[in-house]
């Protein structure tokens, strides 16, 4: 077994019916798996309808991380929640395509605001708070 640093995890924030994740650390493989498991578990526990994952701090997305993002999106879908991945750096996007990873089934948006709009629209909620009213 590999030694894991105790308590090492990526915070998952609950906001209403959404779960928000911002990956701000270097993703080693165990951390990726932990995030995948915890997100799935929290979708169920909080009955979340949407999951937003910010990867703007990630300098690379390799096949392992890419696969995990796909798994998260698929599991969320089965649990009736929408996932959007936001903030991918242009160099990461170029590299992903060349690597052969198409992130099929993973919705993406340029930034957190656009991503949240996407999820809200999909759930039939108003796009923005100020867009409500009669």
């Amino acid at each position, binding site marked *: 077994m590999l030694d894991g640093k105790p308590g090492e995890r990526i915070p998952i924030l609950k906001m209403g019916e959404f779960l928000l994740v911002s990956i701000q650390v270097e993703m080693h493989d165990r951390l990726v798996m932990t995030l995948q498991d915890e997100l799935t578990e929290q979708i169920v526990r909080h009955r979340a309808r949407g999951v937003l994952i910010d990867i703007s701090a990630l300098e690379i997305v390799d096949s392992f991380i890419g696969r995990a993002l796909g798994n998260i999106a698929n599991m969320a879908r089965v649990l009736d929640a929408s996932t959007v991945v936001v903030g991918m750096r242009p160099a990461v996007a170029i590299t992903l395509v060349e690597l052969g*990873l198409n992130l099929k089934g993973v919705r993406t948006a340029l930034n957190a605001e656009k991503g949240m709009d996407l999820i809200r629209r999909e759930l039939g909620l108003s796009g923005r708070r100020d867009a409500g009213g009669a």
Partner: protein
Amino acid sequence: MPAVREETIGVNSDEDVVRIRQVTRQWALDLAFSLVDQTKIVTAASELARNTVIHGGGGTTHLEELREGGRRGLRLTFVDKGPGIADVEQALRDGYTTGSGLGLGLGGARRLANEFEIASRPGQGTCVRITRWK
């Protein structure tokens, strides 16, 4: 072709895969690679370092800075003494996997590099070498 600078790092765990990414990034920066080229070589290094740990049971990564004529390059050599690969052509094919991955590691790393060499013999380990020129 003599290397201007070289370094060898052990690769035996998830943390070492992260370390290989960080060291490769630093070398690519020192060589003034473009951001996209940095991202490509770091992503390829991540895939191959993971292969060394998972399939090779651990090994080493050798980094070399190359100069040939007026151009500079970064060469990475991943060596393990694992079970080796019986059919290299098959292993290079996208989607071929013996583990739980996507089977993009080897073929993807080849696409992300300018030069790619692999030598493997069942029972004797695997050596994968990639070079990216500036």
